[in-house]
């Protein structure tokens, strides 16, 4: 078991290392940040001065080394543009991202779980087919498209909801829906398959044999068991949501982490981009690691495998 944890942890570290390498060089391909930080028509000397100030004049490998070195010390660096530590900016935006993820998750569960149950009870019939269509749409329509359609309908035509920004609960509805959309489909699918598995179990057969009403069999005996994997997935997905909301936050100008990343990219603010990506990658890697370890504790077959 100890060996397994060590092995899994080293894989995690390796993937984080590869991520840091990729993002470091990738962000530098986007261009020179100095050109965006100086006045138009600034001299070569001014630009050189900025390079020097941010350490951009050093060889790439030295820059990378410094970046990783500060990471190990828990330092994500300073934003070029805001002139404040990236971590502070990150913490500033985190509550907004969490709020959005929380509401989007609630929406996706509110839609996904009942739809999944309907589909499982009606397997092969109308609601199941409807659910399949919904899953297909949910997983194939990109969230920016959903976002734009929402803005078009509810802001432009109907004028019910603000199209961008934050501050009131009304601002939250459309981005949460656009973000929760994809996840609703995946929660529906898992609820359906999990329900089907439970409905085929011996204890459901016994519940039938007892003469319990169908509603009680579904709502009491099957639902509670089927919910366990769905809630596990939802827990993971909250973390995922916080980190994949870039597009939705940009479309709706929601001031979260995704929006911060977007700003970082447009301003070529390397430390912001690197910091946000590393934080996101780190969170996802840790969640995966914890899940793998928990599964290994539950299932001895995984533990013993080589």
């Amino acid at each position, binding site marked *: 078991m100890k060996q397994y944890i060590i092995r899994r942890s080293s894989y995690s570290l390796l993937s984080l290392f590869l991520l840091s390498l990729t993002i470091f060089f990738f962000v530098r391909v986007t261009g020179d940040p100095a050109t965006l930080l100086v006045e138009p028509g600034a001299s070569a000397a001014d630009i050189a001065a900025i390079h020097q100030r941010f350490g951009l004049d050093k060889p790439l490998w030295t820059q990378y080394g410094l970046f990783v070195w500060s990471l190990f010390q828990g330092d994500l660096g300073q934003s070029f543009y805001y002139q404040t530590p990236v971590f502070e900016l990150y913490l500033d935006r985190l509550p907004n991202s969490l709020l959005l993820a929380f509401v989007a998750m609630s929406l996706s569960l509110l839609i996904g779980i009942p739809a999944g149950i309907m589909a499982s009870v009606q397997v092969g019939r109308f609601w199941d087919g409807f659910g399949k269509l919904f899953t297909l749409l949910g997983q194939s329509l990109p969230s920016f498209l959903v976002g734009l359609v929402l803005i078009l309908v509810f802001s432009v035509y109907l004028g019910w909801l603000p199209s961008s920004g934050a501050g009131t609960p009304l601002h939250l509805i459309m981005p949460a829906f656009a973000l929760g959309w994809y996840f609703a489909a995946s929660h529906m699918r898992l609820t359906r398959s999990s329900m089907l598995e439970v409905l085929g179990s*011996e204890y459901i057969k016994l519940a039938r044999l*007892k003469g319990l009403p169908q509603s009680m069999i579904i709502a009491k005996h099957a639902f509670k*068991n089927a919910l366990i994997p769905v809630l596990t997935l939802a827990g993971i997905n909250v973390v995922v949501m916080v980190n994949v909301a870039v597009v939705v936050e940009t479309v709706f100008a929601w001031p979260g982490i995704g929006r911060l990343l977007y700003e970082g990219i447009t301003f070529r603010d390397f430390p912001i981009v690197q910091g946000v990506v590393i934080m996101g990658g780190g969170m996802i890697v840790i969640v995966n690691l914890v899940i793998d370890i928990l599964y290994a504790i539950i299932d001895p077959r995984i533990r013993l495998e080589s």
Partner: protein
Amino acid sequence: MTGAPLLELDKLSTHYVSAQGSRVVRAVDEVTLSIHAGETLGIVGESGSGKSTLALTILRVLPPAARIVSGRMMFEGEDLVTKSDEEMRHVRGKRIAMILQDPMASLNPLFTIGDQVSEPIRVHEGESRAKAWTRARELLKAVRIPSPETRLTQYPHEMSGGMRQRIVGAIGIACEPRLLIADEPTTSLDLTIQAQYLKLLGDLQKAHGLALIFITHNLGIVAKMCDQLAVMYAGRVVESGPVSQIFNRPAHPYTRALLNSIPVMGDPDKRLTAIDGQPPDMSTMPPGCSFAPRCTSVMPRCREAEPPPFVVGEGRISRCWLAEPATGGAELRVAGGVA
């Protein structure tokens, strides 16, 4: 036994139909059987012969792929085949109860024992939670669970396999059904626990005067527990009648083979595997007698036409051409052997 039977199955057939309708498994095929109040009927047969499907058909708790395609099930004067789902619900757990083959998986892991044992009482008799729990405690006592009070508030994973099996038994008798169907576990528990469980079933039957259908692989248990016996092969009851008569003079070659395969020391865990050949693939049944490929007395006509049930004695039936009355029962066996 005299008087009308408690349950009478008449040419009952249940088929599993695959999603495309291309594959049909005749898991229960024209089964005719009856059981009287207070009687014990043993059903034996190899794995896959349709025993569990027959039991689930009686309660109409079948998987979606299964259809009752024909026949009647007269229970206390009513045909269970034609009852509505809601009417059937009031039969299940109340008038007919069943103990499933897998007692380990039969209890819901997320609810307490007390909740699960008291459930049928609350649903069928409208008892309050408190009263139903009191009765659940009595039931646990009846199935000899030590310290029932604390067990009520525990969860299934806190119990041993033998204990869970008893609890499932307690659920079975919770509403004092007229008929209890017990499907014997295939993955057997500890032998002494198994013996205790069988004794418990027998005691419960005597105490409550219920009819018992006992499904097993084990003829030794049948000899000990049952009054009547039905032998199933490939979905059909190939022989049925009083246990003592069948044991003394089996009429069907399959029954004979089964009896010969009983181990001398009566190992209660022994499976019916000692017969040469494989059970048939039930989705592609050849014409004629389904036992023909393995039968030592097989005749040419066995492969052409399927033998109907012949009466071979008081309350006895055999589905074998050897039992055809026109040629005379007893001698035929010799003749058949020669042919």
